[in-house]
């Protein structure tokens, strides 16, 4: 019979408080095959791990069960300790008696009984565990970065500078992302474009970066080390190889009143346009919704409408007939850096479960704008050339009210989280405003000020103390047009006073949200995401830039609201992860993959249909005279991700997932 060692952890008081660890050890010591059972204060400590190592050596253990915290926490730790003592790491398993026992129960007897049960399950299961060895698979040492904002740019540059080829995919016509639209950045108030634009150019010119703008991910096949990514290059209507970015086309386009996305609707653009002057690449794109020629073509009008841009182009670069094309890139790792969108008050919501603020009059009351619009107004490259004017009449507003937490921390609107950077950018806005409109009054309605970060609190303080921003702790209940003014009715929670303020302009600090369509991308990548659409990291503390799909990493605001320094730090972290992974010729993979019993497989290929990865291949069994006797299933170990769906599909149970074989699961159930 097997020789199992059971190690019960008190986790200080965490487990010991509700579970009688000694009783668990004693009970497990009575189980068939258990030859060693002890409890200890901290199993994950060095002395704790040594207990395991010593027992393996002394008692010649064939299996180790650690009853402690979640395997998600320490399975690796204990497997490593087991391996250190010369036992195959896969002969070590954990029982979760903390998160799933001591922390959720108060009744000591019941919790102890449950802990014993759980440990018995695993001590039976482990008798059927097999020693496993890692699988070696090939590695394409190129990376894909999805998203050309500051995170994506940083990740791409770090990896390219590290010597690896990078494919950067951006869905907009230009890279740069949200950061390119900001005026200044906190807490230094340096010009956003000044720090970003050089990086954009660097990316564009980097010999190891392949830049695909106006492109989107169509599908992702393969697995870590061997992804095959199909990318849709959307039809720009402009031949990139011919265009020299002279801008003639834009100047002749008759459609001049299209609201500019870049300027958050405050400025206009043409139908053929470069989103902003510093765009990279500096190649225009035809807005198919608004181009007269293309609209005419879609309506099958016999006579071609317009076409002035084509006439104006000296290089014959305009191609109205252009269609979407596809490229497939083979990469070994993927960095997801798709960023965020701003919560949209009052307007239609892009995310399910989120409602807007009708009461704040955004979109109906003039001069109620959001933070990004203020950035554009304040920006030297913005529609007003950096002069603070209000959109309705172009007058300089003398009293601007900033409202914080619009959308954020508002479970009733669907977002319970804090968007983290609004406090900072509101402070920045008040400063920018006050620097430009010296006689202006900046009033901020806030709930709390959250300014954790290097120099952050000082920054907010400066806005209040040096730049005279007036902070009111309270909530605004309604915003209405009152003549030329915007009237706010609110409540000062500190003084308890009801307030009514007439402002010239109101800026709403709206929440940060996940990008629309992120779910579909995440599903293509097989990465999980939370209820808000933010990509889940593999571990909140220890693996903050990994996702739970091997080879896919995450950087920036697509994971959670992030400011620029955080995003850049994450991006560099992903780059170093990828470079680390690329430092080897081949990859080693967890051996928990499926395998086929060639004797009993009947070749019905139900497994093939169940496999989400296409890991099941056809294998011809030959008889002695070399004829095909039967065609059966075979698993590509590199492709298999170990989900085990094949095993359930197999009627004869001829396919088994290592680590979760039927024998193992049945043993656990048998121990019920």
């Amino acid at each position: 019979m097997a020789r199992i060692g059971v190690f019960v952890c008190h986790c200080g008081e965490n487990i010991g408080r509700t579970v009688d660890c000694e009783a668990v050890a004693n009970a497990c010591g009575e189980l068939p095959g258990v030859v060693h059972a002890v409890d200890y204060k901290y199993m994950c400590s060095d002395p704790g791990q040594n207990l395991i190592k010593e027992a393996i050596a002394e008692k010649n253990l064939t299996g180790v069960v650690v009853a402690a915290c979640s395997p998600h926490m320490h399975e690796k730790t204990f497997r490593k300790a087991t391996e250190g003592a010369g036992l195959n790491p896969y002969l070590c398993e954990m029982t979760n008696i903390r998160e799933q026992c001591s922390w959720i129960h108060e009744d000591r007897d019941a919790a102890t009984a449950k802990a014993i049960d759980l440990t018995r399950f695993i001590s039976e299961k482990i008798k059927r565990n097999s020693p496993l060895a890692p699988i070696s698979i090939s590695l394409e040492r190129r990376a894909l970065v999805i998203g050309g904002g500051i995170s994506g740019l940083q990740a791409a540059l770090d990896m390219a500078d590290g010597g690896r080829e990078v494919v950067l995919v951006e869905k907009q016509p230009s890279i740069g992302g949200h950061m390119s639209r900001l005026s200044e950045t906190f807490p230094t108030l340096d010009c956003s474009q000044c720090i970003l634009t050089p990086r954009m150019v660097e990316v564009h010119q980097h010999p190891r970066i392949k830049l695909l703008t106006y492109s989107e991910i169509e599908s992702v096949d393969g697995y870590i080390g061997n992804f095959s990514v199909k990318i849709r290059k959307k039809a720009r209507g402009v031949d990139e190889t011919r265009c020299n970015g002279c801008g003639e086309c834009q100047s002749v386009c008759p459609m001049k009143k299209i609201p500019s996305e870049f300027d958050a609707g405050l400025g206009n653009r043409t139908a053929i346009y470069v989103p902003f002057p510093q765009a990279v690449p500096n190649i225009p794109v035809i807005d198919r919704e608004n181009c007269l020629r293309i609209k005419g073509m879609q309506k099958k009008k016999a006579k071609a409408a317009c076409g002035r841009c084509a006439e104006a182009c000296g290089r014959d670069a305009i191609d109205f007939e252009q269609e979407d094309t596809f490229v497939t890139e083979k990469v070994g790792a993927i960095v997801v850096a798709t960023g965020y969108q701003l919560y949209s008050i009052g307007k239609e919501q892009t995310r399910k479960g989120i409602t807007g603020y009708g009461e704040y009059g955004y979109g109906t009351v003039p001069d109620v704008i959001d933070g990004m619009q203020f950035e554009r107004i304040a920006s030297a490259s913005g529609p007003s050339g950096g002069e603070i004017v209000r959109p309705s009449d172009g007058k300089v507003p003398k009293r601007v009210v900033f409202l914080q937490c619009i959308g954020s921390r508002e479970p009733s609107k669907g977002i319970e989280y804090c968007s983290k950077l609004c406090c900072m950018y509101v402070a920045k806005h008040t400063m920018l405003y006050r620097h430009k409109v010296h006689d202006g009054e900046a009033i901020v309605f806030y709930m709390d000020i959250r300014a954790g970060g290097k120099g952050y609190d000082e920054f907010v303080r400066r806005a209040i103390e040096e730049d005279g921003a007036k902070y009111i702790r309270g909530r605004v209940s309604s915003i209405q047009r009152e003549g030329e003014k915007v009237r706010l009715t609110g409540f000062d929670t500190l003084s308890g006073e009801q307030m009514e303020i007439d402002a010239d302009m109101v800026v709403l600090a709206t929440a940060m949200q996940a990008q629309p369509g992120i779910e579909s991308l995440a599903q293509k990548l097989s990465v999980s995401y939370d209820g808000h659409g933010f990509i889940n990291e593999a571990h909140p503390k220890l693996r903050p830039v990994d996702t739970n799909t091997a080879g896919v990493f995450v950087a920036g605001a697509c994971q959670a609201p992030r400011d620029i320094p955080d995003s850049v730090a994450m991006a560099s972290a992903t780059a170093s992860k990828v470079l680390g992974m690329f430092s080897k010729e081949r990859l080693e993979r967890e051996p928990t993959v499926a395998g086929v019993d060639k004797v009993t497989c009947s070749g019905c290929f139900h497994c093939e249909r169940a496999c989400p990865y296409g890991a099941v291949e056809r294998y011809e069994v030959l008889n002695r005279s070399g004829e095909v006797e039967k065609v059966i299933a075979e698993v590509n170990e590199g492709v298999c991700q170990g989900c085990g769906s094949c095993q359930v599909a197999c009627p004869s149970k001829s396919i088994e997932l290592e680590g979760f074989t039927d024998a193992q699961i049945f043993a656990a159930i048998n121990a019920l």
Partner: protein
Amino acid sequence: MKPEKLYLTEAGLAKLTHDLREAGARVIAPVLATESSSNPVADYREIEDAGRIALGGPLPRLSLKEFFLPPTEALLSWRQVKGDISLDQPSGDYPRTVVVGAFPCDAAALPVLDKVMGWDYRDDPWFGRRKATTIISRACAVKDSSCFCPAVGLSPDSLKGADILLVPVDDSGNNHLVEVLTPAGEELVEAHRDVFESPPDEGKADELRKAALDRASENLDIEPGAIKSWLESNFEHDVWADIADRCHGCGACASVCPTCHCFDIIDEPEGIDRGTRRRNWDTCQASLFTLHGSGHNPRPEQSARYRQRVMHKFAIYPKRFEEILCTGCGRCSRACAAGMDLPEVLRTLDQLASSSEKQTEASSTGGVG
């Protein structure tokens, strides 16, 4: 022993059933199954009163075998505490049982099986149940064209295996001539003397018996001895492949057969520290029956497995135990989904046997020697 003859009326049978149960015996009899099948079907089941007995009804789906060699039975159970194992086995006490209205072909199977169950090693569960059971057979009127008991040396009113034989005396089938055949039968009759009448009214008993025998004899006329010799000297023969073509190897024939007795022994754990070792019915028709752990299978094809079944019944068993391992009940033919028919196979073998006999005669008279 000269059979004592008595008379049992319908009411007598009812009282007998009642009294037997009163005395603590389990009474088993053929009863109609309660289901909406197009044809009436019967099973041997424990009964509470004689009203349920389907006298003259269809042959029960399973033979009496299931009460002596149950489809599954516990041989022993084990329990493990740490490394120590303790064993426990069934008590060996079997309930006192009386089978009322056993078909002669089912009763006859029991002494046939006593041979294999008792050579050298006595199978205690089998003999324990045999000892606890008294069999009251009832002469059969012959069910259909698949009946062939006379061909294997029996008859629709066979005494073999019965302690008491009931023979219907009239067309109602409810009143019986009683022949007491064994000491166990005598004991039963003694204990319940009040339900039997004497002297018997033999009525049409003889006539009905003869008519049944004639009907069954018409169904199949073979020479089992010749078949045995032929099988023994013609192991390899093309005929098996043709016979077994349509056979699914499902083993339904073996399940319903009163004489098929192959079994399997398996362990069935109940949790991690205890379990039961069981004996379950098995069949030589299953390919796994003879499959070795190495993957080698001495009988890889259905033709070999079907041959084994016929060989075992008509050559091997007769040679070892001087009994044909078949009582001609015809259940195998009725149960077969593929239309396999043992009488037909036997007829074929009989023809092969007689033609090869003729050949042998011919060659011996040829005097080539």
